């Protein structure tokens, strides 16, 4: 299995529900319009489970785990 290291958002699918920022505020904040700002920082092990939950909870199916660009 490849190591999945960062959170990535499909900007076209994203509708700005903001669920991700509630589940992993350590990695995601929202801009003035509710769209996620995600840094390129790798996901710390301690919050990996939260990150996975954010991916599965995204109502727009816009969030995924990916490798850094």
């Amino acid at each position, binding site marked *: 299995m490849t190591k999945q290291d960062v959170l990535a958002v499909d*900007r076209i699918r994203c509708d700005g529900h903001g669920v991700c920022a509630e589940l992993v505020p350590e990695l995601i904040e929202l801009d*003035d319009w509710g*769209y996620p700002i995600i840094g390129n920082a790798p996901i710390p092990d301690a919050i990996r489970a939260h990150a996975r939950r954010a991916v599965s909870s995204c109502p727009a199916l816009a969030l995924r785990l990916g490798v850094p660009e």
Partner: protein
Amino acid sequence: MSGISLLAGPDRNGPERFSDHMARLGPLPPDAPSLIDVLDRSGLRGCGGAAFPVAAKWRAVAAQHSGERVIVVNGAEGEPLSRKDRLLMQVRPHLVLDGAMLAAETLRAERVFLYLGAEHTGAVRAMTGALQERSETDRRRTRLVTAPVGYVSGEESAAVHFINDGVALPTTTPPRPYQRGVGGRPTLIQNVETLAHVAMIARFGADWFRQLGRSGSTGTALLTVSGAVAAQTVIEVPQGVTLAEVVDAVGGTSARASAVLLGGYFGGWIAAEQAWDLHVDAASLKTGGHTLGCGVLAVLAASRCGVIESSRILTYLGDQSARQCGPCVFGLRAIADAVHSVAARRADANDIARVRRWAGVLGGRGACHHPDGAFGLLHSALRVFAAEFSAHLERGRCTLDARAAAA
């Protein structure tokens, strides 16, 4: 200015006929397996805006494991200030087709799409007529499609999306077109001017192309010169000449200039006194924080207001959003509205602080680079027109007041 290439030959009186074109330049070299290496040595970069090295792009397509590959000839030319692509198609359509066929041969592509801006009717007519003059092989593998009017239609993934599904809007990348493009096949998308250069380089070689440039630059470039100049026109110049030489070549400025817009709406403003000594060379401009973009050089007269001009461009770019990504739909719109309120002298320092904060967090957050291009323009405007922004914000004064007072 000597040393021209693409526009050498007969005057700009309509499309050059295939027979004349062949008599003037000779046939293409038969099967050129080493063309990619020649392009590499030539230093040719894409002329659509990103200035990506052409050889690297072709190699990326060639490296894909797939039987069939596809060529897309990009003549969408959605940049409002650019005219060079449609002029080239109107006067030298066979150079463009030569380049497309060379790409098809080199990359073993069976299909070639001519993706042309629907509103560029002269270019569409010229390319349609030129295609009819070509061999049956060329004709059979080529299809002409007209792209809907719009700034984002010419973006690579939008072109692929339109050819595949009839929707000229960008898609999420990866996959990029060179990986999965038209029909899911590895696809080379190349601007029409780039392909025309390929046609010349294939005939006359990398060294010939390199020596066309000046001051260490290679080849030539088509530029669209507009604004406060004696003649608004498309001109071919050796790469490496200065912007002052370009403006001289079109008869000089027609009024005192305060700034130039280099690279088009995705480019940036440069204060006139800093602009003239810059060289037409994508790589050196990039080092200096500028871009040649699609070769637009627009001169702003000192009597015009930089805030108002920038506001117009940002509003246009906001309107031209594909409306797919939140940061572009809402963020770019908010920035355009705020800058408009500065232009209209209804804003204060808080508004401009907000604009700076927004631009800081919106970069890189669209599926395509539409918002990023707009923010580049915005940052250059805040820098070059800093005094005019302050005058608007703090004293409610505009450069146009002086002109109104004088009238």
